[in-house]
């Protein structure tokens, strides 16, 4: 077989990537919503949202102010400006409330929604290895629960709307402090129309030993999901939060635009794991940022499969001496997909350290970009920075770009930087097949191996799930 033939064959095998998405995740539910607003965005829509939620006036004002900022701000000039230009903000539903009240028992969730989460395996995961679960459907969290012992330790895990109602003082103190609404156009949009998301507060010294999870499901066509998450880990506490996302397959686009703010106070530890597998008609434009105080640690573990366009650059601001940040991200870009993912770390205190590991796989005409920024301020002496980007290309039309930026304003910094692009090459396949593995088995082994530094960081159940997703995406090859 010539090289081009081999590549054609490879493309044919891999074109079936995620092809069963429609049956596995892409099913749609018939809807009977408590409230379904009109399409389009205006101050009236914002006012309707805030009134329905019966929010304090300061929040309503924040929203209106943010909407004006959204109108005034230009679209980002980076990422994929062509696809961004295709978003029709007038055609999106900004608020859909599926049921009147959130439930604490799956039995009380309407059957069609419960079945959705059943199919996604959420109640089972909850039983087996989670400390708490939040399930958001369209704009609001429909199910929420947390284990009793965590409640007793003072851990707060609520949907964001309830968080604002029940802990207004904490929300007011931290909301928008890590990501102001002026940050970027989609952060202002989220601030204007946010709904749902998670609010977590872990008291000083409390170690939440099992993960808390939120699952975000978009069901309707042309839906805009704008969850807002705020996690505060108080001094010396520890928490691991996991989010997952899917949506049905439609011919027209939906928008997912979340804002996630993390605050790790002195000595605290937060790990935030994302495994998203959006349908291919979803625009996924998310702003995620963390502030790590003295000796605190923040880790973003970010897995991006699916979507039409993802633009997401989890950020850590190391503001306290000895703070540590780690960002580990993978992106899988298949047919007609663009994953513009990356990482940002701001070193603003001495003795801080950060590590960025980015892995991307592009296949067919998929495109994966790494866009990163590491900024080391003048005062951040004795700082360590490590950036490693790895791209794997499958097929001759696949594309990978790397846009790393480093701004280092002092000399007492140790920097390591590596970037590699590799192809699933004929030579590598030959080596593995010469040991008796079929070409498909060999290709899967290479891809799984490439992802291994990421999957080994996931809780076992999620690593298994991710490997299964990849295997499905590579299927057809597997026979």
């Amino acid at each position, binding site marked *: 077989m010539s090289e081009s033939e081999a590549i054609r064959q490879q493309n044919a095998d891999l074109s079936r990537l995620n092809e069963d998405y429609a049956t596995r995740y892409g099913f749609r539910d018939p809807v009977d919503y408590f409230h379904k607003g009109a399409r389009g965005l205006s101050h009236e829509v914002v006012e309707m949202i805030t009134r329905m939620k019966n929010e304090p006036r300061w929040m309503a004002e924040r929203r209106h102010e943010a909407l004006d900022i959204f109108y005034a701000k230009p679209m980002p000039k980076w990422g994929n400006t062509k696809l961004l230009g295709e978003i029709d903000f007038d055609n999106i539903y900004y608020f859909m409330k599926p049921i009147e009240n959130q439930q604490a028992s799956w039995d009380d969730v309407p059957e069609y929604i419960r079945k959705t989460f059943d199919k996604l395996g959420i109640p089972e995961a909850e039983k087996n290895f989670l400390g708490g679960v939040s399930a958001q459907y369209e704009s609001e969290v429909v199910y929420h629960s947390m284990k009793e012992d965590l409640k007793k330790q003072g851990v707060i895990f609520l949907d964001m709307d309830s968080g604002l109602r029940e802990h207004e003082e904490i929300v007011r103190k931290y909301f928008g402090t890590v990501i102001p609404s002026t940050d970027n156009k989609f952060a202002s949009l989220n601030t204007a129309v946010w709904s749902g998301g998670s609010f977590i507060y872990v008291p000083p010294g409390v170690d939440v030993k099992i993960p808390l999870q939120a699952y975000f499901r978009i069901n309707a066509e042309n839906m805009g999901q704008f969850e807002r998450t705020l996690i505060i880990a108080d001094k010396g506490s520890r928490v691991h939060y996991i989010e997952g996302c899917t949506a049905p397959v439609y011919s027209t686009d939906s928008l997912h635009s979340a804002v996630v703010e993390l605050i790790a106070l002195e000595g605290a530890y937060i790990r935030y794991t994302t495994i998203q597998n959006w349908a291919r008609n979803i625009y996924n434009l998310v702003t995620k940022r963390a502030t790590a105080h003295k000796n605190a640690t923040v880790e973003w573990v970010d897995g991006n499969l699916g979507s039409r366009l993802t633009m997401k650059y989890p950020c850590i601001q190391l503001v306290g001496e000895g703070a540590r940040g780690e960002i580990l991200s993978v992106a899988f870009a298949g047919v007609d997909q663009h994953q513009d993912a990356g990482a940002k770390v701001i070193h603003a205190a001495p003795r801080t350290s950060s590590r960025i590991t980015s892995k991307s796989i592009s296949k067919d005409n998929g495109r994966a970009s790494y866009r990163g920024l590491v900024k080391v301020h003048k005062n951040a002496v004795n700082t360590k920075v490590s950036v490693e980007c790895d791209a794997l290309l499958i097929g001759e039309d696949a594309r990978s770009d790397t846009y790393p930026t480093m701004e280092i304003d002092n000399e007492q910094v140790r920097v390591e930087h590596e970037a590699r692009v590799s192809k699933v090459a*004929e030579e*590598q396949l*030959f080596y593995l097949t*010469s040991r*008796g*593995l079929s070409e498909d088995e060999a290709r899967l082994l290479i891809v*799984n191996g490439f992802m291994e530094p990421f999957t080994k960081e996931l809780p076992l159940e999620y690593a298994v799930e991710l490997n299964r997703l990849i295997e499905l995406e590579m299927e057809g090859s597997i026979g």
Partner: protein
Amino acid sequence: MSHRTTLFELKDIHVEVEDKEVVKGVSLKVKAGEVHAIMGPNGSGKSSLSNALMGHPGYEITSGEAYLQGHSILEMPPDERSRAGLFLAFQYPLAVPGVTVANFLRAALKAHRGPEADMSDFRRLLKREMAALSIDPSFATRYLNDGFSGGEKKRVEILQMSVLNPKMALLDETDSGLDIDALKTVSGGINRFHNADNGILLVTHYQRLLNYVQPDFVHVMLGGRLVKSGGPELALKLEENGYDWVEQETGLTAEV
């Protein structure tokens, strides 16, 4: 050894790389229990021959026949050749990041034994073979050839051979890049693998490996052909006098 059955047979093999003929008619018979060595200077076509026999897509066998235990192998893709009992120890083994030596070998052995096969002996087998090759146990969980030294890669090639236990092993420049201790260990592994039922074809530039792995036959490859065959003494003569005298005697040049 003439009563033994023919294990591996090549009939007039021609190989092209990028439309250039690099092997110009090689015939060879390896009987069960035999060790053959093909020696030749750089560019004589010996590595092309071994890659082509394993089924490398960049090396096209344009004519000729090859049989392993009486079965024609040239229509088989590399994985079938492997499962049929052919093995190639690579001159430059590639790294496969993220795939551990143990996981890789388990997958390969399973491919040989079939999906339903019992693999409960795998751990013990791997441990034993690693110990025999003086490979540190930690290598089982290291990524295949990733960051391995030249010598470590060669040892792990021999480890793969020992675990998969092929009928016919082609060893392509397995001695290159080895210091004397590593050479002894690797040769020990080859000798340990060798038995009356399998065959070995050593492809090498130098004679020194043959001090440790005694060949039954030595063939000299020049210009894509086997131009001279003999016993072990031929290797010693090449070591002493180089390849020039063969070129003069046969009127051929080394390079294809």
